[in-house]
Structures are given as C-alpha cells and as structure tokens.
C-alpha cells in the first residue's frame, strides 16, 4: 500500500510539522450537509512551503481555519479527521488548549490586510500583545523587539511606525505588519490564506520574497493558500490542487507546471493569462465549483471536465501515483495511464472499496 500518496516522503527522515489525515469539515444547514473539506490529507515539514491552489469555493480557506481551530458553528470537523501538529492531535483540543497552540505554534496571515488589524489599537500595541502572550516579553524589551520585527519585514522608520494606527499604513505595509505580528509569536508553521490577493502585483512580489527570506532564516513551515497559479509557482515547493473539498492532484511545483495530469490542473494552467499568447482568447473552465453536499461517489469535476466519460459519474477516483517516488499523484479515472480505461476504472473502484475498510492514515 505504499503507493498511497498520503504517506510522508520516504526521503525525509524528519517528522512533519503538520500532518493532516482525512480532514473532513462540514457545515450543517437545515436542508443539507455541506462537505466543504472532504477527506484531504497532507504533510508539511520544516522549511517547506506547501501550496494549496483552487478556485473560490473549493474549500481552501476552510482547510486553513480547520487547522487553526477557527471553524465556527454551524461548521464542524468530523470525528474521523486527524490534524497532528508536532505529534499532538489538535482535533481533540479544547478551546483553552488551542489558544496555547495558536500564535506560538501555528500563525495565520489572512487575506485582507485592510481588515485584519484592529483599527483602534496601534500597530505596536498589537505586535507587543503577540510578544507578551506568546513569549512573555513586555515593557521596553517588547518595544525593542517589535522595532526589530518591523525592520525584519522591511518597514522603514519602524520606531515611528510602531506608534501609528493601521489606517495610517498602506495595504502592503499592513500585510507586512500582520506578518511581523505573526512572527512575533514565533510559530513553527505559518498559514497564509491568500495573503497577496488584495495587493497589487509589485507588492505581491515583495511579500512573497519576504516570506521566502523569513522562511530561510527561521526554517518556517508555510502552508500557502491561493487561487493564483503564478503566485503558487513562485513560492511553493509542493502543490496540492483542490477542487470541491478534495485534492485532485499533488505534485512538486515544477513537475506540476511541466507535466500536469489532472484535467482540472490542465484547465487551471491553460487559464493563466499569457501562457497561450498565440491564442486570441483565454481558455476558461466552463461552469462553477459545485457545492459538495453529498458523499463523493463520483468525480466532482466530471460535469466540467472536457475528458469525462460515463464511468466518471459512477466511480470516485482515488489518488494514483504518477511518478516513481510517489511525489506526484492525480485522482482521475484516466490514470494509471498504462492501463486500459476499463482496467483503470476497476482499479479505482477496488482501491475505493479498500479505503473504506482501512481507516485513513493506517497505511502500511
């Protein structure tokens, strides 16, 4: 069963910082159960950046919030899910225990820097709060440390900036300040939920560069969520492509861009402006991400897939290894490529059945 790609990279001897297995986050409404995140698994190691890419509504942000323990009612994480952070099972944590992990363990940078700082407190106050709570630093020492942090994120004249309010900062500056605040917590893992989406392109590049430098300095593990393939190409080591609550393809970043396997990934890459310069119009993927409101017994991408065939509506695809080392996999009935379509479908059907019997995460 070592072909299952959820397994940690056999080359890396170190324990992953974050290990997510079969994460299922659902939202109960009066009418239906929405499976925003439906059975995803991944690992992140020290110093590594994992990108999660997908369209709006594919469940990326819910994944991030699930890890942070910030899923509010009516959302809930189903009992079979496992989120292990430095070996600790977070899904069993109480609110108070989670408070200990947030900040000093896992930090998070949100999408809109204009909204993610409290408007009525100075930037310095908010950074120093992080320092005091997570590292017990206060007073003059905290001020010095905060100045240092603002310097680290390349904010000029940090001593003066510390006394200013968020509305006196520009958008890019605010995102830097948020990053500085999260670094003040000294986390092992930083979750970035579309941190560059609200910023213009030049600022985007600066923020990405900043994150890369900080990662190198601190050996941070980063989970980077975005819908922007260009940004993903810049920052990630490995990429998981998400669609309707599931991962449809996982691959190292260069491999993904050079050799995409899943029709959805192909569609996403085709839709990047500038890659198909000879074409007059940009390719798009017709339709929208469906709301996953029932168990996946079929391929959720099938209705929009140019390569879909009859069985796609009947059989739920499992991850099939593409590369030898198992780093690249795709969940599509077209694979394994060396088999005929019938054989491939049968392969998926069987593996699907096995997965139901064997609890997730227990692969040999």
């Amino acid at each position, binding site marked *: 069963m070592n072909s299952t790609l959820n397994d940690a990279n056999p080359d890396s001897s170190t324990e992953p910082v974050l290990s997510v297995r079969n994460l299922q986050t659902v939202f109960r409404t009066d009418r239906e159960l929405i499976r925003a995140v439906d059975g995803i698994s991944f690992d992140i190691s020290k110093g590594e950046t994992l990108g999660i890419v997908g369209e709006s509504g594919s469940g990326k942000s819910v994944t991030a919030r699930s890890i*942070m323990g*910030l899923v509010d009612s009516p959302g809930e994480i189903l009992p079979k899910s496992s989120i292990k952070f430095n070996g600790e099972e977070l899904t069993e944590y109480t*609110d108070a225990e989670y*408070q*200990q*992990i*947030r*900040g*000093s363990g*896992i*930090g*998070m940078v*949100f*999408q*809109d820097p204009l*909204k*993610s*700082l*409290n*408007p*009525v*407190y*100075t930037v310095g106050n908010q950074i120093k*709060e*992080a320092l005091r*709570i*997570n590292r017990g630093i206060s007073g003059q020492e905290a001020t010095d440390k905060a100045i240092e942090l603002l310097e680290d994120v390349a904010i000029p004249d940090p001593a003066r900036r510390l006394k200013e*309010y968020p*509305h006196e900062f520009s958008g890019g500056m605010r995102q830097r300040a*948020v990053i500085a*605040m*999260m670094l*003040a*917590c000294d986390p092992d893992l930083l979750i970035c939920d579309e941190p560059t989406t609200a910023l213009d392109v030049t600022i985007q590049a600066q923020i990405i560069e900043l994150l890369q430098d900080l990662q190198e300095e601190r050996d941070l593990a980063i989970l980077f969520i975005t819908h922007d393939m260009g940004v993903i190409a810049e920052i990630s080591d490995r990429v998981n492509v998400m669609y309707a609550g599931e991962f449809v393809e996982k691959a190292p970043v260069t491999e993904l861009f050079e050799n995409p396997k899943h029709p959805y990934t192909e569609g996403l890459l085709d839709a990047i402006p500038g890659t198909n310069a000879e074409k007059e119009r940009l390719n798009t993927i017709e339709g929208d991400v469906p709301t996953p409101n029932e168990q996946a017994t079929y391929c959720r991408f099938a209705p929009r897939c140019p390569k879909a065939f009859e069985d796609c509506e009947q059989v739920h695809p499992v991850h099939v290894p593409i590369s030898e080392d198992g780093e690249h996999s795709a969940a599509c009935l077209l694979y394994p490529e060396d088999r005929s379509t019938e054989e491939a479908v049968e392969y998926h059907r069987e593996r699907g059945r096995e997965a139901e019997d064997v609890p997730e995460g227990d692969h040999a």
Partner: protein
Amino acid sequence: MNRFIYLLKRLLLGIPVLLFGLTVTFLVLYLGPIDPVLAILGRDANPAAARQLEIALGIRYSDGSMVPLWIQYKNFLVDMVTFNFGTSWGVARNQPVMDLIIGRLPATLWLGFWSVVIALGFGVPIGLYAGLNSNTWGDYFASFGGIVWRAMPNFWLAVMLAGVLSAGGILSGYRDFLIKTDVIGTPDELQYLFSGIDVFPGIPILEYLWIPIPNLMPMAAAFKWILPAALVLGSASMGNEVRIGRTAVLESLNSEYIDTAKAKGVSTRRIITKHVGRNAVIPLLPVIMGEFYLLIGGSVLVESVFSINGLGNLFLRAAFAADIPVLMSLTFIFIVIQILFNTTQDILYTYIDPRITLADNNE
C-alpha cells in the same frame, strides 16, 4: 492639531448652530399669533396701561412708533447671551425667569440622572450580553425585551405606570414598599438630598463653599418616588442601547481582526474586553449621548403625567401661557446644553476611535 484647539474649534462651530436655533425660535414666537399685551393684561386692558406695557416690553418706542422686528431680534439676542432672561409673563408673573429655572432644575436633574443611569446600567450590559451570546434563548429574550421597551411610547407607558401605581391601581402597594412614598408629584425630599458642611465659615465669599454630604434616607425615598417616571423616560433609550449594543458586539466579533487576534493566541476573555469592547463602544456612543435629545422631549411629557415640577413641566405650562421669556430662555439653555453634549461626543470620539483625526484634512 492638538485636542485643546480642536475643542475650541468645535465650540466655535457651535455658535452658528446656536444662532440658527435662536433665530428659528424667535421667528416662531414673534411671528406667531402671540400678543404679549393680551397674554399679560388680558382682554379688558385699558389702552394707556397697554401702551405703557408695550414700551416696557420693548416693542414700542416712547414716542409711540413700533420698534422694528430686527431691533427686537437684536435686543433679544443680546439679552440671551448675557443671560438677561427677564421676568415671567404668565407662569409666575413678575418672577425672574432665572429663579424660576433654578427652582425647577433639581427635579429635572434628579429625574434625568436616574433615567440615564437606569437606561445605561441595564441597556448596555444586556445588549453586550445578547451580542456575545447571539442566537441563544438569552439573546432572544433580551432582544425581544429591547424591542418591546423601544416600541412602548412614552406617553402610553407613563399613563399606564402612573395608573397602576397610584391609589387603587394593581401595583399601588409599591407606594408603601420599604419607605412610604408617593409616585405622583415632586418628591419633597429633593430639598434634603444633601446637607452641606461649610468649609470656611465666617470668611467672606469663601463662606459660600460647602461640601455636600448625601443624606441617605431622603435620597432613597426620592429615588423610589422618581423611579417609575425615570423608567418611562429612559425606556426608549434602554431599548435602543440593547439593540445597538448587540449589533455592535456582533459586528466586531465577526470582523477579521478578531480572527487575527485569535490566530496569535489571545484568550477569549481578552478578545472580548480588549478587541471587541472598544470597537463596540464606537457605534454605542452616539446612542448614549443622544439620550439627551430624548430626555428634553420626554421630560415635558413624563413630568406632566407624573406632575413633577421640573423644567419640562415649566416648558409646557409656559407654552400654554404664551410666556415668551420663559420659553425663550429654556430653548436657549436647551440649545446650549445640546451643543455642549455634541462637542463632548466629538471629543470622546477622538479618544475612542483613532481613525477620527483632529486635523482638518489628511494631507
């Protein structure tokens, strides 16, 4: 720009407001159907006395010609800003208006004070509770209560409450509860709320300085007496504070900066006291300060239903008696207080919300 200059500027900006308010009041009263001579001397006044009065009132020169309206307007403005309020025509003939107002002030202050304290003391905490526990039964109960309080009109609630509490009403037992008091009329105890201790007895001028010592029994009695009226007067504000408080807390709780604060490990308690608290006060402030508007209008009504001899009652009776000096002086005082309240609110805002700048423009 520092806060002191800002304050001065706000006060200066109050002057046009004051002028406008006084002008409108002047026009309403002087261009209206009120005939001062008729109001003072009655229908059967003898012409010589009437002429004499017109001269005394400043609407006719001693040579018999009429004083133009704009001169009357100018004289009126000067009288007002120099606090030369004149004497009453009708409510208490020939009594200085200043004395009249000072005499009625304690009852209104006592009533207004408790209506604000009760509204704030219950409305704000209940609203915050409802926001923090949104969509629970406690929230539904509090929110529904807030709407009910808001919806009950002052005039209806005042009559109902006065009815059930006075002799023969189903709650008339309230009057004998703990301390025997009435609920209708002005509490006599108002005169005995404080006893003074002279600081410098016998020393000229300084002998008027005294330290007020509250007298507990009269205070309790006066409180019990005024409580129903204060409840009515504060009812709408209380309802408003519940509703706005709830919304303000909810809005803040759902903001992204709360997620950020959680993400850096801030405890729930601190998130509520520090991050939600101050943001929730911003929309609450105008509601709290705006209580004053409601108090002026409400006190006219509540004081007349409960027969409390305060400024509201005085205002109403002056209006019926066409007592222009009293009406003018009270309006002037109300406008001045209103401007002071608004200025206070603006200054408080600069402390609570840093996004409100003291400067004229953001360069």
